[in-house]
């Protein structure tokens, strides 16, 4: 049996994974990254608008501070974020953003040559540092460059299939070398999950095709609970047709949202901040306009940038213009962009503390797949990139400390046993002669999630969703896989990932059904108000043989007592 071994193994090569790897490598540990795509193809690359940090570079009557940033984040989270974690992020974010600049990120500049900052939704200051509207691309390439300089080992195009847990600790992973079709166990003193989100369980999503939530499922399968999964962010502005993201920066730079009657309708939903309300409120505003027949035929509204003028669009929003032209045939200099809300981000995930530690010893998590929780019930734009670099670095540092304390090497028999058990399970799957096409099930799940578990939720819809997911899980057993080898076996990967996605969908639905209130992104039309008395708490979902079991935990409040949230 071939067995690989590293001090620290990181699953996922996006911003959080790379940042963690760099930190651990700098502490002189044997670090490897395993990713199902080349790190530069990770979804972080698609982030556009920017990264928040209270640098105070933009002209404002008073200077911005990390405390202001923390307040905006906590209010934006509808008071569900853990305030100690938010404080860490906002305080340390300043130096982490400067560090990214020192490593080569080409941020846009103020006239004085400082990092430029733009207004973003739900923020009291122009706090979002940006590299035109390609901030994620800039950051990801810079971190990959740093990782290249440090000669960090990367298993490119490998798939993590199952965590190996022994004596209540994570010991490694069974991974598939996709091109060779071999399952290889990898021992790690510390394993860190940084696999991103699971947007692809939704039909309308801004996420990359690869975002199937594999890390969340790996942890869930291994007995780790998932936190606050019912909080799914719907981005207000995805391009009508393909649902590719149109950045919040388009509104930050002054874009208007206009319905089919020509009204700037955000006046009805966020009279002060208008288009720059937080995402949950703007997305619901747009969806209400569409639902009440004030949208355009097909279900969209307009994002109008024309008044910004050619020069500003070319300078600040060149990527947005390119996307609109490439994928909708619309030049925003001349025409408004057709947009509709779409799933964008998962606030929930694997519970961690501020050092990336999960409830399972030796297992760490960072980035979108983790739930620290800094976003609570609704994430502010510009905070996810910040989360990846702050908590990626913290998790990498802590993982390195932990690896130092671990002396024992791989237990060969254990890995052999687990590999054998997995392979016999696999043989059953690959030998199956079912007639059910996998894509059909996947598409049914995606439609279900968008239409029944979307921006507006209600008991009856959620009950239908629950039943349907149960049915899909049953039908999954009738999916046949024609190819018998594992090399380039897309059928198998699709099947495998769909199994995981159905579990995550189930967790979202159960959490949403139980939470009889409206908070942030989770809006129940049958319970339209926030209910702090009963629901100011985090959901924890456990996988049991009987299905999802829910539990709850307290929210950490430090200096910002919950208040009514108006914009």
């Amino acid at each position: 049996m071939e067995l690989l071994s590293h001090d620290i193994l990181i699953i996922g090569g996006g911003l959080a994974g790379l940042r963690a790897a760099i930190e651990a490598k700098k502490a002189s540990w044997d670090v490897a990254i395993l990713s199902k795509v080349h790190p530069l193809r990770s979804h972080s690359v698609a982030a556009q608008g920017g990264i928040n940090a209270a640098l105070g570079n933009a002209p404002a009557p008073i200077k911005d501070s990390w405390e202001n940033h923390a307040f905006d984040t906590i209010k934006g989270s509808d008071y569900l974020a853990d305030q100690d974690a938010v404080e860490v992020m906002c305080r340390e974010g300043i130096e982490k953003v400067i560090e990214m600049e020192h490593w080569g990120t080409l941020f846009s500049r103020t006239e004085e040559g400082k990092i430029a900052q733009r207004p973003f939704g739900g923020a009291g200051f122009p706090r979002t540092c940006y590299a035109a509207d390609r901030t994620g691309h800039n950051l990801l390439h810079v971190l990959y460059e740093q990782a290249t300089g440090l000669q960090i080992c990367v298993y490119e195009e490998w798939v993590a299939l199952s965590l190996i847990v022994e004596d209540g600790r994570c010991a490694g992973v069974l991974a598939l070398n996709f091109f060779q079709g071999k399952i290889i166990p990898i021992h790690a003193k510390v394993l860190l999950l940084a696999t991103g989100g699971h947007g692809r369980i939704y039909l309308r999503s801004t996420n990359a095709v690869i975002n199937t939530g594999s890390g969340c499922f790996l942890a869930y399968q291994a007995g780790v609970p998932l936190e606050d999964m019912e909080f799914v962010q719907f981005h207000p502005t995805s391009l009508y047709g393909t649902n590719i993201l149109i950045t919040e920066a388009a509104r930050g730079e002054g874009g208007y949202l206009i319905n089919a009657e020509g009204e700037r309708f955000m006046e009805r939903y966020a009279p002060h901040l208008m288009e720059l309300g937080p995402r949950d409120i703007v997305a619901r505003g747009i969806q209400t306009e569409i639902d009440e027949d004030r949208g355009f035929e097909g279900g969209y509204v307009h994002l109008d940038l024309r008044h910004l003028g050619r020069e500003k669009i070319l300078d600040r929003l060149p990527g947005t213009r390119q996307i609109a032209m490439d994928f909708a045939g619309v030049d925003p200099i001349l025409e408004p962009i057709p947009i509709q809300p779409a799933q964008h981000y998962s606030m929930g995930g694997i519970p961690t503390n501020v050092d990336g530690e999960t409830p399972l010893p030796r297992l760490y998590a960072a980035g979108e797949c983790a739930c620290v929780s800094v976003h609570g019930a609704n994430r502010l734009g510009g905070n996810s990139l910040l989360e990846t670099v702050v908590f990626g670095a913290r998790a990498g540092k802590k993982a390195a400390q932990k690896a130092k304390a671990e002396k024992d090497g791989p237990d060969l028999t254990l890995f052999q046993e687990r590999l054998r058990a997995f392979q016999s399970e696999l043989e059953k799957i690959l030998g199956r002669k079912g007639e059910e096409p996998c894509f059909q099930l996947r598409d049914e799940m995606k439609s279900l999630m968008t239409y029944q578990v979307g921006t507006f939720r209600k008991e009856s819809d959620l009950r239908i969703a629950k039943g349907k997911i149960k049915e899909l899980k049953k039908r999954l057993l009738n999916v046949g896989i024609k190819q018998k080898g594992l090399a380039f076996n897309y059928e198998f990967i699709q099947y495998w990932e769909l199994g995981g996605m159905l579990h995550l969908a189930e967790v979202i639905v159960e959490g949403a059904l139980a939470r009889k209130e409206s908070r942030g992104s989770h809006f129940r039309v049958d319970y339209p108000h926030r209910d702090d008395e009963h629901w100011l708490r985090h959901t924890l979902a456990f996988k049991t043989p009987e299905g999802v079991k829910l539990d709850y935990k307290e929210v950490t409040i430090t200096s910002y007592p919950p208040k009514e949230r108006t914009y």
Partner: protein
Amino acid sequence: MRSTLLTLSIKRFHKEKDSSPWIETFQVETRKGMNLLEALLRIQDEQDGTLAFRYSCRGAVCGSCAMRVNGQDVLACRTHVEDLLGKPTLVGPLPLFPVTRDLIVDMSTFFNHYRKIEPFLHGKPISSQTEYSIKEGERKEIDPYIQCILCGICFGSCPAFEKDSQFLGPAMLAKAYRFLADPRDMRNDEILKAIDGQRGVWGCKTVFNCVKVCPKEVPPTHAIVKMRGKILKHRFVSLFAQILSLLRRSSL
């Protein structure tokens, strides 16, 4: 009414099955606004689960889905199927790279060249509390080269890379210029030394193919020409200095 049926003749290669590639034709029903990547994903889902190709963002930013379509190197996600209807479309892997399977190519040469230019900022010393000062003009000089998504399309259409696979290639030379022109980077001679030579800037045929095909409008040839100028200036200055010192010595 115009047919909405897309016919794709895909060049396939599975080395365990057949040592030479073969062409297989698929038909896909299209809808308005569909792109080639969606069509390929549909084939993989509904018709042939063995069809291999790379994909990720489907928004032309990740650089995964570079391939050759009717003789042009493109990103599949950015290619509209409306433009391909009516006649069979030939789809093949990105040329000049070894084929791993079907539309997947081995990009290890590409990333080896990437590593050769030490593609990470060698920053001038600065306090961890303060940012570098960069003028907007300096940023704009580098910005076009920052847009590179390392998709490999420019390599596929480069005659110098076709002739010599050790030629650094357009994307890497553009990347080298991005660091050379960055006021934060303390390297100068090191970068010029790394790209001086037939496998660097002097191997370029200046036919501007890379500039034409780049899906992100990066102009590698412009960077190459600028760097040639810098090397020549460098040589001229050191030659001038040598002559000057010879003259000084002879006058002693």
